[in-house]
């Protein structure tokens, strides 16, 4: 039956994604619910909750509040929390099914809260019926628009900062008629969009992404510098080190480990890296309006990719054939960008190993008689990899055969039809795969199984 979930259970909803983006920004986050939604968001979708404090509140809406439309009670309660918290940067009102069903005008409610409390108030119109990535996208866009309008300027000035609207306006004005950005220009700062705990392969992922983006961009900066100037790297180590340090960009992972004071960099970074579909819409917007180019890529650790590639090749069929004659039909289940990037890593390792194995087998002409050690066999197989997701799928970065599932029935039909040899995905998916006898490799996603199968570190996945 379409829509019935017999084996899987609900994934993180939009309201959780919305909170994930705002969690570390020092705002008062008000979940407009009766209590259960706030408990679910904090207790089941927010791994930072136990160790990183944030002012997350439930509005504690009761039946008569909803039926009689007693919004003034919510406004009074928010006012009380603003006083109790004392130094909040903003208020965010997070929609849930309850305000959705009674048709609460969140924008109007936000205006009234703002008027009463004097704090900028962001309405995040989630309904609890979409998945987390829609909510995260909504939070990013609401923040960007609020910064553009200068709605958060007062909070910035309280911190002694002067960014947001003026920078945005200046940059937008300067962009008009300007030449396109030189792809070889020095990149001093990079923004990462779409990184929340719900998107990552492991919970240390934000820091790993930051490090990998920094390393990759530093290397690109060095390369571009050499291309521009023809400069050859100095043989002296301290000079090399200094040159490397000079070319390191600042990296801002918007959504994790990034505070309110750094939000202004949304408009000032030289480029963006989008690590999940939740970051795509804001990246496109920032490119269109402010000329900030972006690339869509989740930086996968080389060690992880090698480990997964080895295990995929071990599962390739027929098992008794030579490695080069084996093949594996593989499905990666995750958010689309992580899935795509992992696929590219696996393919790239596979290609490299094939080349190495071919070279090893050829040997050096004329040395056939010289004894040599048995060459190392690098794992390889004929791989056909698809990426599937229950979350948002951007068509322009999907390959033929990739799939977005609208429900469990569609998911199961697809798997039965495709007969994959290997599936990489959150262990919770196995509950729907009892009939399947392929190889399942765990690739957790917090928005699927939460803490039940969480990977605290990427090392756990090796």
């Amino acid at each position, binding site marked *: 039956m379409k829509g019935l979930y017999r084996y899987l259970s609900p994934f993180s909803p939009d309201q959780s994604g919305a909170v994930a983006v705002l969690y570390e920004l020092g705002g008062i986050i008000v979940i407009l619910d009766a209590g259960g939604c706030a408990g*679910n968001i904090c207790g089941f979708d927010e791994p930072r909750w136990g160790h990183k404090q944030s002012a997350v509140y439930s509005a504690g809406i009761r039946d008569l509040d909803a039926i009689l439309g007693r919004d003034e009670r919510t406004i009074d309660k928010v006012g009380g929390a603003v006083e*109790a918290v004392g130094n909040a940067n903003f208020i965010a009102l997070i929609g849930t099914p309850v305000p959705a069903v009674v048709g609460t005008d969140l924008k109007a409610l936000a205006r009234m809260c703002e008027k009463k409390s004097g704090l900028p108030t962001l309405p995040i119109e989630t309904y609890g019926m979409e998945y987390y990535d829609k909510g995260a996208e909504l939070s990013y866009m609401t923040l960007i628009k609020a910064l553009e309008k200068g709605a958060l300027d007062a909070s910035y000035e309280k911190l002694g900062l002067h960014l947001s609207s003026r920078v945005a306006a200046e940059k937008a004005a300067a962009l008009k008629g300007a030449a396109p950005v030189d792809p070889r220009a020095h990149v001093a700062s990079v923004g990462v969009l779409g990184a929340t705990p719900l998107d990552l392969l492991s919970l240390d992922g934000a820091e790993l992404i930051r490090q990998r983006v920094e390393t990759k961009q530093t290397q690109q900066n060095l390369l571009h510098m050499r291309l521009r100037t023809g400069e050859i790297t100095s043989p002296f180590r301290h000079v090399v080190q200094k040159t490397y340090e000079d070319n390191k960009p600042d990296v801002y992972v918007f959504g994790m480990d990034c505070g309110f004071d750094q939000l202004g960099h949304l408009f000032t970074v030289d480029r963006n890296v989008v690590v999940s579909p939740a970051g795509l819409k804001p990246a496109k917007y920032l490119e269109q309006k402010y000329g900030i180019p972006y690339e869509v890529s989740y930086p996968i650790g080389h060690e992880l990719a090698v480990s997964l590639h080895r295990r995929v090749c071990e599962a390739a069929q027929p098992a008794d054939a030579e490695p080069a004659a084996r093949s594996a039909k593989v499905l990666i289940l995750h958010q689309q960008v992580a899935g795509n990037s992992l696929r590219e890593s696996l393919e790239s390792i596979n290609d490299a190993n094939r080349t190495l194995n071919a070279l090893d087998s050829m040997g050096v002409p004329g040395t056939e008689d010289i004894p040599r050690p048995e060459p190392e066999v690098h794992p390889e197989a004929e791989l056909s990899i698809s990426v599937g997701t229950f979350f948002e799928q951007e068509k322009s970065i999907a390959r033929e055969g990739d799939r977005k599932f609208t429900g469990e029935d569609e998911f199961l039909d697809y798997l039965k039809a495709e007969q994959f040899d290997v599936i990489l995905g959150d262990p919770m998916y196995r509950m729907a795969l009892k009939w399947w006898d392929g190889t399942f490799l765990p690739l957790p996603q917090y928005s699927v199984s939460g803490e039940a199968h969480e990977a605290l570190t990427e090392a756990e996945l090796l």
Partner: protein
Amino acid sequence: MKPFSISVKELVALGADHIPEEFIPACHLIYSSPATLFYNSPGAVGFGVKRAALVLPESAMLLVAPNACGRNSTVMSTEEGYADRMFYLPMSETDLVTGRHLSRIPEAIHEIMEVADPKPKAIVICITCVDALLGTDLPRICRKAEEENDVLVIPSYMYAIEREGKKPPMVAIRETLYSLLERPSVDPRAVNLLGFFSELDPDSDLLALLKGAGIRTVNQISAMKTLDDYYEMGKANFNIVLHPESVYAAGTLQKRLNMPFLELHRLYDPDRIHNQYRLFGSAVGVTMDDEAMYERCIAKRNAFAEKYKGTSVAIGEMCNANPYELATFLCRMGLTVPSVFSNLTEYDFPFLKQLAEVSPETRVYTGISPSMVHYEEETVDLTIGKDAAVYCPSARHVLWNSEKQPFGYTAVEGLLEAMDAALSEPEDKEADA
């Protein structure tokens, strides 16, 4: 800024009719700290509505709700082993407007009956706040589904929106659980224990005392393996209510099946336990011979008091105890309780008054207060309760929230042993009792 707190003495002076607004959820936003998950998410910790409903033997649940409402089941059902009995029919925005989701319930049940292994004999339909506001007539839908499928279909409600109402979700689900009982005959030597969704500690003196008093059968719904076993509960002479949230269900059974009930409280002061058993015996007309148990408990209490006099303890509400009654017991033993983290209702005032006599300066914090965002750790030797452990992480901890329900003298002895273990272990701070 400081978090709101108030001394026990001040609370008692205000009285049950003037409980400060900080304790009343309707008066302010409800803070979500790790310690308030118990309050904020009725379905999140231990037995929420969904897991509680599945205590009904040979049942399965169909949750008909927005995605957001079923999210906690992802983790809970996996960890607690009821994933195979949970099914979901998520609602869309269109469903919200058209009510289409309701017409799909019979078909969903038909499919559950095809795929579930083992095949359930009862399916509990659970709806949430959204349907409360839409005015959904779930009993009618259940009747229709029952006609179309050869299975019992039972309505249940996870209405967080009615949390402070006459019948909050955890009260309603207890009523639902016993709604199938009939009373074909009465077994004078059988009783039901109502209140917990997991079994009473088999070592509890209550079970031994009931046997000693001539009660041959002590029924607990959580111990029932089949629906037929469950129906046997209808024959019980009377019900013993061990948790106040079961009073409503017991009242319904009294009215509907003429099955009387009486209440027993989970207490930690051995003198009060002894007195409670004595009163119970005279009310029912049996002898509860607990002298030996009482003496043994007193001896253990005295030894503990001697060893740990002056030890400071913070108590939370996420434990198998009433925090105010427990605080009074500990203070009477010579320990100190500088803080209690708990919400408060008028029913707590008898315990509060006793606490005020022995420790008037104990401060009561309510985890739901918006100002708790400013709470800074207070130094204590030991915490009891999962929430107190969050507030005072540097202390040693006794969580005392196991699902095997402690009751009576054995509960006291078990708690004292757990406290002794935690206080004696310098390295391992947490006695996960």
